[in-house]
């Protein structure tokens, strides 16, 4: 009696999981906040920043300032039967240097909202 219920339960779970897929991926290396706090405005130089964060993914120039751009993307994707949803979250860090090559500003912060595994593609009935 009990074992047949277990088999039934396992079958139901197996059936519900059929056609399901949950996938996670990322692009670039995540930079810890601890690394960023070692960068000091008005003191750290390009070499100091590169020693802590590594080579930037992009180097920009804006109004006489040089900007190191580091980025990281995190992806969570869920598919259940005919529904599929993929959520991507970007995480960017900009280190801005003044004309003498010293850090003027560090722009870093997490975008709002956690990155979640979801499979329901519609806004309703949850929003």
């Amino acid at each position: 009696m009990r074992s047949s219920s277990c088999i039934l339960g396992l079958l139901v779970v197996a059936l519900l999981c059929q056609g399901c897929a949950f996938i996670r991926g990322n692009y670039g290396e995540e930079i810890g906040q601890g690394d960023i706090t070692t960068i000091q405005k008005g003191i750290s130089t390009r070499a100091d920043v590169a020693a802590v964060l590594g080579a930037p993914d992009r180097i920009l120039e804006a109004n006489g300032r040089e900007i190191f751009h580091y980025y990281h993307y995190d992806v969570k994707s869920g598919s259940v039967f005919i529904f599929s949803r993929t959520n991507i979250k970007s995480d960017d860090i900009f280190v801005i240097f003044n004309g003498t090559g010293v850090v003027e500003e560090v722009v870093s912060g997490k975008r709002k909202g956690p990155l979640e595994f979801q499979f329901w593609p519609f806004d309703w009935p949850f929003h």
Partner: protein
Amino acid sequence: MMLRNLCICLILALAFVSLNGCSQGPVTWRRVTLNQTISTDDVIFIVPGKTDISAVVERLGAPNEILASHDEIVTRYYFTDGKYFKANYGWGFRFVIPFFAPDLDLGGGGIGRDVFQVTYDNHWLVRGHAFAFHSRSSEFLAWPFRD
């Protein structure tokens, strides 16, 4: 009685498993989002000439892009929503003509990339901000032949 129920469940399970290739079904809904939406309520704290970049980043996170424009610096936050729908109108034929099941896929979707832009002066104080909403281009399309 219990054995009979178990047999029925096993038969149903086997039937479902045999339809494994049909798990996509006749319809498919897919959605892709990049970052969470920034709404007008989220940016109500920004006061041009008073709010600085640290305050903006603390509330909204780091922007996706920094651009130069004349005597100001432009930061941009991107958030994208993509929707896609597909219906296979030939799917049901496999039950009528098992040896010939033509696929007739119709559907469509769209990707809307919204942008929130903040401009700063040379002292990193907000000079202005604006939204560019294109989210209406993101929708599930059942009929691809419309104008």
